[in-house]
């Protein structure tokens, strides 16, 4: 039975499969960059980072401090080969204006200093100078910094009473705006020309204008009051105030008086002019039944369950001042529109937000096979899918609930006359991610003399297989056979071999369903994705978590919750008295719907990379993610399969297997451009992605200008004509026998077959531009071909190219007892290409590409292509044995020795794979365990399995290095039991580790974890020491953090710390005032106190009282004192007025 699968015929089959793999049709381009780098290893070349990002002080387009490719930098400015955050000039921090007192987050040192600002470290400005409080400017209040408050009060028209407060009663923007008592206004009467004139003003304004406090009417009466005997007549006309919702009466001197009409913005009316009259105007959106300030979502079709169609976009709508506004969420479904409905006294009220779609996390969850179901279930943006074909083809996978969109077209600038851009080979998201669902299902059949019956994976051959796999495929993103957002189905995004195609009806998913809404997720969920913001350990006194506090700190974030609160308890006047507790969760998640999209951590969490200091290489990330999913699935299937097969090993029967292949490719837009115009509706702005999803001829015009329009390009109905792509062909080869039906690739010098074990790039041009596929079966139609011509074969391009590796059939002669004729036959390769243009036309006759492998005896010796660990890798400290594997470019037997001797004298054998079927991208695998206790230099030689048994003449020298000492964490900050006291909340705390020893002087990758949270450190090397920094924003509480470091050799070091953060954000309270041989005051905490006799005084310029702890005193004068105290953290308390009596 076994021979049946290891005979010559089988060998031919394996080689055909092998050709497919080596041709890198389906997936291997994912590893292109990796392999390109790795192949250099055997030549002793070190791995070079693919990234060439530098810090540009200024880019050519004029932006400052950008980490970009060196070509983007303006050469007239500084350029450093590192990220901008690591440079001194582009360090990101807080820039404070000494003029206006305003703080600017995320500013570069360079720009700040050039503008004359004061630069402080910490991009988030968690410093006392930037603490916002309530600035009372006469009859107005503003939420701002103390310095800005002073600036505005000193401005020309503001000679008014000013106070900046930050205490328990005024520590939120909302309380400041609505609850803090401002200066009262009243009639300010003055004589002018023998008449009593009047202005309605505050006391300070009155004094400023008239020079006397006695002119001010402290009762707060209007100027038109008859008792005041002014020239102003009452209720002369109505009008609006700039920043007030009510309609007011104004007297004949144009002074504000009583409210004429009581408008209320929160319930839908605002002062406005209509037909020359000032009235309360209705600002609700009555025509669509929405209230002012309401927001809601709309969708193109079905959302969730992996069913969002390509081209669809979530859209947020808002009703504001009587007008509906449309705010599309980020394209490619990178944002989803979440909505929450509440019941108010006036009916339903919706709040919506565009929030980041965490689909990338779903794919990451597959890393941990055991926890995938739990992790997936915790994330509302993910869906868990179990696929079971009735046996071993059974696996779990976590998939995006709202599949992402991918680019549907590419720049055609990959090709120039002389060269092909490297970007051509980079994995695009669509190509890379979709390939995770490309799977082979092997059904197993038990056969006896009475026939065969299926025993494993019997569902593979049924109609359900393609449907199930296509569901997996479409959930990954714009992949597989599916509809676009207007309901047009295309099946070009998948292929299935050995089973019926997809039969599901997808058109229903284009129907709109107003009842569906995306899940916002809960606060706990959001806390888990922001590692920079540790969860609270002890909750704040208002029961807000760090996460909640962070969100509510954003200006305007109280707006929507306040509106909802007012609408839900319209008749409850306590709303206004209890604004401070508004955010404390009494209205649940709705509090955050307006701010939920503010979670910057959600952005950071999208990319899991080891060193946050380095720019990510996205091709690598795609490869890693997809490889992880593929690995997990394969492992699941293989493990089950072995179990299934073992059961029949001892039976009187034999087994056969049948393979069913499912290929998941990027989704293809429909042919033509008949429906392009559907993108031009006014409801949702048309984007490039949305336009192109409607047809392969659709193209967005006027991109980015605000006047975008989706138009169909001119239809070219000619059939695709394929010709060889000269530029793509590797040096040393040429196209021969070129005809309209194909060409042959030959060695340029011999004009004959090409040598074995070489890689050749070649390509085709196609006119009109088209997608191209390739097959080894001349009878396959375009739709039957499951392999793309090269990495961008599924995109409409003017040319396509691919890379092919040619093994030597001779290598299998001995293994499979192949005859000369069979060797020659195996060496002849024929491929057939079909291309489909954007108008849907396919070349009817396949374009044939022929080549052959030199049939002569194998005269080349094997070559080691890749080692793991890499050359010169460090060994862990004290490590005595090392498992080593390497790859050889042809089937071989390999040996090693501590001395450079002949192959025959080498006594240690590697275990090497030689079967054709186990070929990998790097070649054939060999492995062994090396004794590295006393020796780290090894000599390796291999002998191929061809008839000639070619042996490497020179040894491959493989060397490893010992670590000199253990890796040690020798410095941890904050220190154990440290007490961090700060005057601002949240406060920025740096977690810092110093490491030494190990393989390379402490260089290591470190992580921290606290309360189940964790992230990698930013690493820097300064003055010979290795330092790891991570900035976290902490609120008051106790913290326990564990640290884990690992270096390149696998040396590990752990440590931990625990510390307490105490926030003292309010100024000192004055608890007692009395006369004891002078004015004495007592404060609740140690403080410095100052006084002045003017109400409007600047603390820094005021007179200091004696005393630095809790008791303070000064001379007793019969004057009105204004006293204020400041604690050691710079928090200033409220001002009090002390009026001593004789």
């Amino acid at each position, binding site marked *: 039975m076994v021979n049946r699968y290891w005979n010559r015929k089988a060998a031919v089959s394996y080689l055909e499969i092998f050709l497919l793999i080596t041709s890198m049709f389906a997936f291997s381009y994912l590893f292109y960059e990796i392999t390109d780098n790795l192949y250099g290893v055997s030549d002793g070349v070190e791995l070079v980072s693919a990234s060439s990002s530098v810090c540009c002080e200024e880019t050519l387009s004029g932006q400052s401090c950008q980490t970009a490719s060196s070509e983007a930098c303006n050469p007239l400015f500084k350029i450093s080969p590192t990220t901008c955050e690591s440079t001194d000039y582009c360090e990101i921090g807080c820039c404070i204006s000494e003029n206006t007192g305003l703080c600017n987050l*995320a*500013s570069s040192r360079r720009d700040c200093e050039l503008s004359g600002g004061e630069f402080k470290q910490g991009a988030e400005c968690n410093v006392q100078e930037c603490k916002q409080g309530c600035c009372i400017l006469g009859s107005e209040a503003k939420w701002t910094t103390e310095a800005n408050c002073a600036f505005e009060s000193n401005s020309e028209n503001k000679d008014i009473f000013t106070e900046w407060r930050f205490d328990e009663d005024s520590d939120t923007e909302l309380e400041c705006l609505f609850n803090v008592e401002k200066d009262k206004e009243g009639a300010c009467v003055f004589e002018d020309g023998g008449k009593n004139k009047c202005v309605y003003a505050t006391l300070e304004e009155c004094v400023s204008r008239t020079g006397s406090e006695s002119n001010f009417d402290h009762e707060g009466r209007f100027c038109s009051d008859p008792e005041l005997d002014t020239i102003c007549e009452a209720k002369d006309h109505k009008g609006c105030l700039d920043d007030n919702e009510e309609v007011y009466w104004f007297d004949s001197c144009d002074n504000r008086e009583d409210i004429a009409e009581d408008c209320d913005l*929160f319930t839908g009316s605002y002062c406005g002019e209509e037909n020359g009259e000032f009235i309360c105007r209705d600002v609700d959106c009555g025509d669509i039944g929405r209230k002012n300030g309401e927001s809601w979502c709309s969708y193109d079709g079905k959302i969730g369950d992996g069913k969002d169609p390509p081209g669809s976009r979530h859209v947020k709508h808002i009703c504001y001042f009587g007008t509906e506004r449309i705010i599309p969420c980020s394209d490619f479904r990178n944002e989803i529109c979440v909505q929450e409905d509440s019941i108010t006294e006036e009916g339903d009220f919706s709040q919506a937000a565009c929030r980041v779609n965490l689909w990338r996390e779903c794919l990451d969850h597959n890393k941990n096979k055991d926890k995938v179901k739990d992790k997936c279930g915790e994330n509302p943006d993910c869906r868990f899918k179990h696929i079971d074909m009735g046996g071993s083809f059974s696996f779990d996978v976590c998939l995006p609930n709202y599949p992402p969109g991918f680019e549907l077209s590419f720049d055609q600038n990959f090709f120039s006359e002389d060269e092909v851009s490297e970007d051509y080979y980079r994995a695009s998201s669509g190509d890379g991610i979709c390939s995770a669902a490309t799977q082979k299902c092997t059904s197993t059949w038990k056969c006896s003399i009475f026939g065969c019956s299926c025993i494993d994976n019997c569902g593979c051959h049924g109609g359900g297989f393609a449907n199930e796999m296509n569901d997996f495929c479409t959930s990954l993103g714009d992949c597989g056979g599916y509809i676009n957002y207007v309901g047009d189905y295309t099946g070009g995004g998948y292929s299935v071999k050995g089973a019926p195609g997809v039969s599901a009806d997808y058109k229903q998913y284009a129907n709109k369903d107003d009842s569906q809404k995306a899940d916002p997720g809960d606060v706990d969920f959001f806390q888990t994705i922001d590692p920079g913001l540790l969860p609270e350990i002890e909750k704040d006194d208002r029961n807000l978590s760090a996460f909640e506090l962070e969100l509510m700190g*954003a200006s305007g974030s109280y707006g*929507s919750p*306040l*509106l909802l609160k007012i609408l839900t308890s319209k008749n409850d006047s306590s709303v206004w008295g209890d604004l401070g507790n508004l955010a404390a969760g009494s209205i649940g998640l709705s509090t955050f719907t307006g701010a939920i999209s503010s979670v910057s951590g959600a952005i950071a969490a999208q990319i899991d990379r080891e060193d946050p200091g380095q720019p990510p290489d996205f091709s690598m990330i795609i490869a890693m993610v997809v490889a992880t999913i593929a690995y997990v699935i394969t492992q699941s299937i293989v493990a089950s399969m072995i179990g299934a097969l073992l059961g029949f090993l001892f039976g009187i029967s034999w087994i056969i297997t049948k393979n069913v292949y499912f290929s998941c490719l990027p989704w293809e837009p429909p042919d033509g451009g008949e429906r392009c115009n559907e993108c031009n509706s006014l409801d949702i702005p048309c984007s490039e992605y949305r336009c192109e999803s409607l047809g392969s001829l659709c193209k967005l015009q006027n991109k980015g200008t605000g006047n975008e329009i989706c138009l169909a390009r001119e239809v070219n109905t000619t059939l695709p004509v394929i010709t060889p792509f000269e530029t793509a062909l590797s040096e040393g080869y040429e196209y021969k026998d070129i005809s309209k039906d194909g060409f042959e690739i030959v060695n340029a010098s011999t004009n004959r077959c090409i040598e074995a074990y070489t890689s050749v790039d070649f390509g085709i041009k196609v006119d009109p531009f088209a997608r191209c596929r390739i097959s080894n079966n001349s009878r396959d139609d375009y739709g039957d071909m499951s392999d793309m011509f090269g990495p961008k074969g599924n995109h409409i391009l003017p040319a396509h190219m691919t890379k092919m590796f040619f093994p030597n059939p001779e290598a299998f002669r001995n293994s499979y007892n192949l005859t000369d004729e069979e060797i020659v036959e195996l060496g002849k390769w024929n491929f057939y290409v079909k291309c489909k243009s954007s108008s849907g036309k396919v070349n009817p006759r396949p374009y044939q590409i022929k080549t052959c492998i030199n049939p002569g005896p194998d005269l080349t010796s094997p070559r080691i292509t890749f080692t793991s660990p890499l050359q010169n890798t460090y060994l862990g400290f004290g490590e005595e044995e090392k498992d080593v594997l390497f790859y050889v470019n042809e089937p071989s037997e390999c040996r090693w020795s501590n001395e450079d001797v002949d192959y025959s004298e080498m006594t240690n054998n590697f275990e090497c794979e030689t079967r054709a079927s186990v070929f990998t991208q790097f070649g054939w695998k060999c492995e062994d365990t090396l004794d590295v206790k006393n020796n780290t230099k090894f000599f390796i030689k291999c002998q191929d399995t061809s008839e000639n048994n070619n042996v490497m003449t020179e040894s491959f020298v493989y060397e490893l290095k010992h670590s000199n000492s253990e890796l040690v964490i020798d410095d941890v900050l904050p220190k154990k039991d440290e007490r961090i006291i700060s005057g601002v909340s949240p406060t920025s705390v740096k977690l810092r580790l110093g490491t030494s020893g190990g393989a390379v002087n402490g260089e290591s990758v470190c992580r921290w974890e606290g309360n189940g949270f964790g992230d990698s450190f930013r690493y820097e090397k300064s003055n010979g020491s290795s330092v790891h920094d991570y900035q976290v924003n902490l609120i008051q509480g106790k913290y326990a953090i564990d640290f884990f470091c690992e270096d390149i050799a696998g040396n590990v070091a752990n440590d931990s710390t625990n510390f307490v953060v105490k926030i003292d954000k309010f100024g000192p309270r004055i608890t007692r005032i009395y006369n004891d041989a002078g004015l004495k005051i007592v404060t609740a905490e140690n403080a410095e106190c100052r006084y002045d006799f003017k109400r409007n005084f600047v603390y820094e310029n005021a007179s200091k009282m004696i005393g630095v702890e809790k008791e303070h005193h000064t001379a007793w004068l019969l004057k009105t004192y204004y006293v204020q105290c400041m604690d050691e953290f710079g928090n200033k308390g409220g001002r009090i007025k002390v009026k001593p009596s004789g």
Partner: protein
Amino acid sequence: MEKGVMNRRSNSRSCLQSIDYILPSQKRSQITIFVIVASIIVVSVIIIFLLIKGPEVRVLDENNPQAFIESCTREAVEEAIEILSKQGGDIKPKGSLNYEDEEIAYLCYNINFYERCVNQRPLLIEHIENEITEFIKPKVGNCFFNLESNLRGRYEIETGEMELRTVLQPKTVIVEIDKGFKMTRNEEVRDFEGFKMSKVHPIYDLAEIGMKIVNQESKYCNFDELGHMILYPEYDIKKFILGDANLVYRVSERGTGEEFNFAIRSCALPAGY
């Protein structure tokens, strides 16, 4: 040479005479009508032109050069603010995008995906002050030149070096001009040490909201414009989401309709990875 010219003149005169002689009276009437019609057309065009764009008459009150300079400076400031408001606070936008045929400067930008933006204009208010100053400096210089030209002959004028300062404050733009200006006529001496122009405009307030938006976009990758408008209804904020993760914000004061536009690229997410 002179002779030749004379000859040509005499020839043309004799030519006219000969036409006179040749033309019958009917034809002369026709020409007269043509001339009248042409005159009417020309006069009409001039009137229309004057009606559409009235002559730029700046009344010079000799007793009040301050008013002249203030008015002249005001025009320059208005022009500057109009450009700055459309273009994100830059007269010549550096690092900008084109939206609705306007170049709009990025106030916060990150070229990369997944990363929060870097503030491109910290101290935006001071930046706008400088931009206004630079823009109006030559124009205010011209104002003084025109003032001098108008007064010269009647007064003896002595001037000093000019220094300009623009100060933005809530609802107000102030331009302070330090320039000695001395007018002398006989015994009459009028000496000015400086001039000042104050204009009610919300550019400070709009820029401050812009800074607030930049702060939040750089910290949270988002700005909740609806929440802000509910709390501050006097300001309207519109967000336009363009391709390639570019945002254009348009902040306006509801009462005056004055706007301030700027662009942001922050936390851009790619299609896929």
